[in-house]
Structures are given as C-alpha cells and as structure tokens.
C-alpha cells in the first residue's frame, strides 16, 4: 500500500507543482469514485450543501458537462456562468470577479479562461477553491489526470511507459499537463509534431522531440493525439490541413508499424479525418470513450479532495457512501 498523504491545497491550478504522491492520491481517489457512476442511484452526499460554480470565460461543452456531472453526483449545487468576453472589454478585472464570488459565498470555482495564469490570479484573491479547467496554453490539470488514469487502466504502470503526444504542442495545455504528470510518474515522453508547432526548449522538461510520426509510433505504448486547434493557430505555422494530415494524421496504415497493444487517446472533440481517420477513432486501439467516463471520476476526486480540505476529514468519510 503506498503511503497515503492528505490533500492540503486550496486550489488545483496545474500538475507542475504537484508531487508524485499528490497525483497518486488523486488517481486512487478517482478509482473509488468510478464505482459511483455505475450505480443505479449515481449520487453520494460528499459535497451536499456546497456551491460549485463553472466560471467559463472560454466556451466548452464537454469539460463543463463533465465537471457539472461530477459536482452533481457529489450532491453539490451547481451553477454555470458563461462570461462573455466582448471585443469592447479588454479583460475583466479580477478584483471585481473575486468580490462578486465572495459576496455569493461560493465554495468551489471551476474556471476556464483563454489566458494562461488567469485561474492563478483569481485564486490569490478568493477564499474559495479554484479548479483550473484550462488556462490558455498553460495547463488543463484534470485532463492530464484523466489521461494518466486511463493509461494506468489500460497499460498498468506509468513508470517506463513510452508515451507519444502528437499535434500542436505549442498551443496545448493538455500537452503540458500530460508532460508534467507523466514525467513525475516516470514515463518516457516524446512530443511529435511540425517544428513550427513545438515550443522552444521543451527538451529541458525531459521530453524527446520528434518530427516524424512514423518513426516514433513504432515504440509507443500510448499515443495521445491533440486536436489541431484552428482557433489558436497564428498564421504561418503550417501550410494546410492536408499537409498536416499527410505527415501527422493517424490512419490504419501507419498503425501497421505500431505495437499490437497500442493505446490511442484524444482529449476531444475529434476532428474526424484530420488527427484521426474515422476507422482509427472507432477502432480497437482507441480508448477515447473510456477517457470520458474516467473524466467524471477524476473530477469527482478532485472536487472531493479540495472540499474535504476545508471540512473535517472524519465527517466526509461517511459521505463516501461506505
């Protein structure tokens, strides 16, 4: 039995600052919560009476729904606030946002923002817990955690696992969170994509860099495929989708050179025919739907750990439904 530590952080802003033990704590807790979603009555009272707000400055249906489900299955009261960022207002002052949140006595804020560091700035100004649901290109910690949870589920130990992350690494918060979590747990990580979409000096994090999918896929245990993000792309980074697909798209042909028990993952939403062909997306290697299921469990774990940090640990143990 690994040493069980307590969760002490007010916020979950990223995986960069977490220790190996903290990550394992979240994954173990998620394992317990998986079972809740299999019950006929998918509810435990762990967060009853708590107010959880999805504060999304960037639109998202999947992540928001996943967090909403997680919070509701924990019996929390959930509010969704979609902040419109118009072209007129250059940016909300965090002071105002923070004051309103305090005034409404919100317990947990799940925040997604187009700008890196936004949740960090808010977390400093509020007593409420802040869960980062994606900040610019910086981190998406719950996605990183659910990806690692899925890898563990499908391939066992993370230590020594050969993981390839393919796509627009420069603009990907999913890539960065994956890298932090995987490196801490001892995986061998390679980032693969066009040179124009790999950020400078990323090797300093301890990852390998490749511009050839064909070469890297040979030894891969897991391939985590990123969306080509049209909305984040700046001019001149790659000539066309067609060319991207030719070099970095995953199809059944390129999989012929891969391991037979290769696991293919994708954070969604998939651009069918771009990052993956439909055959691959729906094929035997793909665990994309497992990621969605695991996502709810991981988010339940995160919400639970952050909430129980404030209240009596003893009281919550009863709330686990045991």
């Amino acid at each position, binding site marked *: 039995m690994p040493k069980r530590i307590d969760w002490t952080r007010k916020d979950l802003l990223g995986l960069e600052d977490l220790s190996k033990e903290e990550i394992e704590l979240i994954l173990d807790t998620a394992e317990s919560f998986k079972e809740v979603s299999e019950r006929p009555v998918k509810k435990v009272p762990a967060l009853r009476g708590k107010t959880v707000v999805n504060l999304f400055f960037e639109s998202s249906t999947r992540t928001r729904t996943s967090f909403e489900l997680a919070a509701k299955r924990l019996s929390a009261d959930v509010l969704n606030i979609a902040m419109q960022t118009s072209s007129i207002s250059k*940016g909300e*002052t965090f002071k105002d946002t923070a004051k309103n949140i305090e005034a409404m006595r919100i317990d947990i804020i799940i925040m997604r923002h187009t700008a890196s560091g936004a949740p960090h700035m808010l977390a400093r100004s509020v007593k409420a817990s802040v869960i980062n649901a994606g900040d610019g290109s910086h981190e998406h910690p719950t996605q990183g955690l659910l990806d690692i949870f899925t890898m563990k589920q499908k391939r066992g130990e993370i230590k020594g696992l050969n993981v390839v992350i393919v796509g627009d690494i420069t603009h990907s918060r999913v890539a960065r969170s994956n890298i932090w979590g995987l490196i801490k747990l001892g995986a061998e990580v390679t980032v693969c994509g066009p040179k124009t979409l790999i950020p400078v*000096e990323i090797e300093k*994090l301890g990852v390998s860099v490749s511009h050839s999918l064909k070469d890297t896929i040979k030894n891969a245990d897991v391939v985590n495929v990123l969306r080509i993000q049209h909305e984040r792309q700046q001019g001149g980074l790659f000539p066309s989708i067609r060319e991207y697909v030719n070099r970095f798209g995953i199809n059944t042909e390129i999989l012929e050179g891969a391991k037979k028990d290769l696991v293919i993952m994708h954070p969604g939403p998939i651009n069918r025919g771009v990052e993956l062909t439909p055959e691959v997306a729906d094929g035997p290697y793909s665990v994309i739907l497992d990621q969605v299921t695991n996502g709810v469990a991981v988010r339940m774990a995160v919400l639970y750990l952050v909430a129980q940090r404030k209240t009596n640990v003893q009281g919550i143990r009863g709330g686990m439904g045991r």
Partner: protein
Amino acid sequence: MKLLIKNGHVVDPANKIDSDMDVLVENGKIQKVSKNIKADGAEIIDAKGKVVAPGLVDMHCHLREPGREDEETLLTASKAAVKGGFTSVCAMPNTTPPCDNQGVVGFISSEGKRIGLCNIYVAGTITKGRRGEELSEIGELKKAGVVALSDDGDSVDNSEIMRRALEYAGMFELPIIAHCEDKLLSKNGVMNEGFISTLLGLRGRPAISESIRVARELELCAMTKGRLHIAHVSTKRSVELIRDAKKRGINTTCETAPHYFTLTDEAVKTSGFDTNTKMNPPLRTIEDVEAVKQGLLDGTIDAIATDHAPHTEDEKDTDFDSAPFGIIGLETALSLAIMELIDKKVLKWPELIEKLSLNPSKITGLNKGRLSVEDDADIVIIDPDAKWQVTKKTIASKSKNTPFLGMTLKGAAVVTIREGKVVYVIPA
C-alpha cells in the same frame, strides 16, 4: 541665495572628480567645488557619508499628460522624478494628442516650468501622429524645443521613412531614439520567447524581433551618418551588434533600463503571472542580463533610462494577455543601479553617474550632468545605504505598477536640488 553642501563624496565624471569635496551653490548656479569651502550666510547641508552628484537625467520616460491623466500627470511625474534623484527628464511623445506639433510640445514644456520641480524636456515624434508614414515637421519641433525624436512604443516599420528621418533629423542635430522591434516577429507576444514562455504557455517575443531591427537601424545610421540612439536595449545580440558598430565608427548611442539588468523572464513565473512583470521589450534570459551588464561595463551601453510607463491598477488587474505593457521606474532606478551595478562591482560611481546623468545629457544636447562652475545647480545627494520599502503609499507616482512592490530596496536620493532650490527631501 547661497547653499553649501559639505563633507560629501563628490562624483562628477565630467570634471574627473571622485573625492570628498564641498559644493557651493549661489543664485542657482554652481559656484565652487573644492575642499573645505567656507561661505558666510550659506544654508548648509551636511552630506557626510553621502554621494554628491549632478542631478540624474532620465532621457526616456512616459509622463502620460496630455491624454492619460488617470495614469500620471506632469505634476505627479515630477514628484516621482525628484524623489528618484532626477532633476531633468525627457518626456516621450506617445501622448494623446501626440507630440508631433508645437502646441503639445509647448504645453508640456510650460507645464513643467510652472510645476518647477524637475526640468521637463520633450521628445517629438519622428512621424506625424506616430503613424510611421510621413515625417513630422521636424524643423518646427526643433524650434518648439524638442531635444530628441522618437516614435517610441512603435518602431518605424518603413525602412525608407527611417532612412529619410535619420537624414533629415541630422540637419537639426536631433538624435532619433529608436524603439527597435519587428512587429511581425513579435506579434501577440506577451513575454520573452524561451523556456519560461514554453512552460507558461504564453506567446513569446523572440530576441531576434529586437536585434533584427537594431541591425537595420545600425545599417541606416552608417549610411546616413545621422544620430541614432537605440532605446531600451534588452538582448545579448543587440549589445553585440552595437558594440561591433561602435568599433567600426558608426555614430550611435544606446540605453538600457534598470529592469533589464535586474530581472529575468523567470520573474513572470515566480511572481505567478504578475502583470507588473509585463513590459515591452520583455524581461529576457540570464544570458541577456549578463550581456547588458557587460555592455554597461565596457561602455557599449551609454545610458540608463527608466522607460517609466505608468498604468492604473484596474488596467493591470487583468489576465496577462490583456494587461497593458509597462512598469513605472523613476523612483526605483537609482536603488536598482546601486544594488545591481555598484554593490555587485559592475560599475564604479563615476561610471554610474555617466550612465545616469552625464551621457543622457550629452546625447540630448543638454548642458547638464556636470558640476562645472556656472552650470545650473542641479544636484542629487545620494545615500547608497538608505533602505526603503516600495509600497503603494511610498510611491509618489500616480500609478503603482512596479514588480518591486513590497520589496525593500537599498540606496536613495536624500536631497534633490534643481537650480539651487531643494525640490525633494527624503522623509525621516
């Protein structure tokens, strides 16, 4: 009116003085600088243990009036300047309306005189409206009293216009203070491009966006033989290019700002995305900081200028991408120079006073930066060991956007004198 500054350590590089001396001021002019001056009826200031130097000259600062009086006014800027030991400042022309005409230049000049704390000089724009398309009426601006030209905030993207500007301004002996940035390379970048920007997922401005434009300006300067001054040098490569150009006899000068020899891009990370670490040019890597220090040491970098850029608290209290670029600097420049350059033995006092007073005066054609007899008595008395805490209360500027907020700095002006009149005394 006589003023006698006794027992101080006078540092006056123009006159090669670096020793304990007394300074006698009469009717707003330097009367005498020598040992053991006796003067009847003089007001005495005891400067024992202090450095006595020509008042500091900031050749690059943004004073925001007219147009953004919410960020700073000429009055609050003057207070900040004299607190920082500056007796002369040169206001950059990116005001609203900009300083591309006699009206605005005249307004700033006369306001400065009316306020009467530090001398406020004005830089005019290179191009009309700072649009980079047509030359300003440079002759008229010279008549109105500008001491330099700049489109600072922006580079003149059109090389032909920059060439003609250097040629034309050369006729009036006006230096062009060049903000060097290739906007297409730096587009949408909010910090230095490097390992830290990769970690933080922030778009970066590569160092070459500065050095490529520096290279262009040096080529244009060589060809036109105009007077080029490169603003806020922040990268190793820029320092190398300027060093090389000077070796080849090209008539260029340059400046850096205190944050470029004090902080690196790591500050963005360690401060947790504090928008007071966001400015343009951005904080760079440790290699760049070392190169800037070396440039100051070997004379490649002639001047230290603050690039004081006030922004209100609300403007800066937003996400890193949206926040405006810039930090204030008039009040922290001297402290940072003492801590990073004097205490770390990069520069000696005479060299520092060259960078902060004499050279900026020479570059902008002012008769300042010296304690010669009959010069205006613009003097700063510095306590190199005075400790002060940077807080919203202690900052005299209207805006408080500094990355040094909350820190205790070492070294401060204790008395600032302009034209023989005491315009600032450090609070007890």
